[in-house]
């Protein structure tokens, strides 16, 4: 009996090992902590959506070219908890987003904070992000 239980545990353990322990799509798998970005631009679209929201932001490169960013935010429940509302977003408004750039996709970023034109500042980071002090205690 003990051998059987051991065998079962071995099989279960093997399946667990397929996916090393990590939170729901790990921050470190997709975003680069060594590439913090401050994006000052125009919001072309905001997806207030589960399981993650997305801010589409256009910034100007030093050479004048427009760069399109796709910035991941926390889920609606978390954004609401930090005081943000869907109605705070209008297409074409300016905003400043701080976050981290994607590892393989240079137009992708993980948002940490958002500053609106009226000066209001919001935490927009997802659960499982880096402990960089952006999250209000």
């Amino acid at each position, binding site marked *: 009996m003990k051998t*059987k239980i051991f065998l*079962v545990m071995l099989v279960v353990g093997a*399946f667990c090992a397929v996916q090393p322990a990590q939170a729901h*799509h790990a921050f470190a798998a*997709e975003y680069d902590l060594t590439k913090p970005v401050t994006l000052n631009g125009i919001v072309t679209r905001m997806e207030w*959506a*589960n*399981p993650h929201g997305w801010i589409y932001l256009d910034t100007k490169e030093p050479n004048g070219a427009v760069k399109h960013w796709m910035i991941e935010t926390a889920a*609606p*429940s978390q954004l609401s908890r930090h005081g943000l509302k869907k109605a705070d977003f209008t297409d074409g408004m300016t905003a400043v987003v701080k976050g981290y750039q994607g590892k393989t996709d240079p137009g992708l970023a993980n948002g940490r904070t958002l500053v609106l034109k009226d000066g209001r500042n919001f935490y927009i980071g997802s659960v499982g992000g880096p402990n960089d002090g952006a999250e209000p205690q």
Partner: protein
Amino acid sequence: MPSIVPAFAWLEGLAWTTALRESPFGYPLIETSHVACIVVFAGLVIMMDLRLVGLAFTHAPLAQIQRRLFPWQMATFVPSTATGILLFCVDPLRYYRNVLFLAKLVFLALAGLNALAFHLKTYRRVEGWDEDPQVTAIARLAGVASLLLWSLTIVSSRLIPNNWFK
């Protein structure tokens, strides 16, 4: 061949799918129920499979285990499927373009076919080997296939949010 994309775009744009996608509590509630039902369902399926492969309950008649587990398997499979369909309707284009989601559907279909073949063919003749600690080879094979296919279904589902190969 007409593309399915316009149909999925239409589904995504409906008032109720949009409301659910944007909801602070509805979506997490459905998502959590989906996972909770699967956890229980998988546990019940694994116990039946372990009896088939001869690793658990070998001294209990197979039919007795099947009779006791089956209603609970169905009671968790139905809500996990219903919540799964809801989650798909909320974001059909994202899942349609996610290769791991498509892989999950394939494994799910194969696991379903394996279960169907077992219940409609192999299990029909259970009287002959009901009390044997070691069941017939074809029944053992069904148990191994079930363990493998349900595991692959769950692992590929778990990898969907990683958004690989986009």
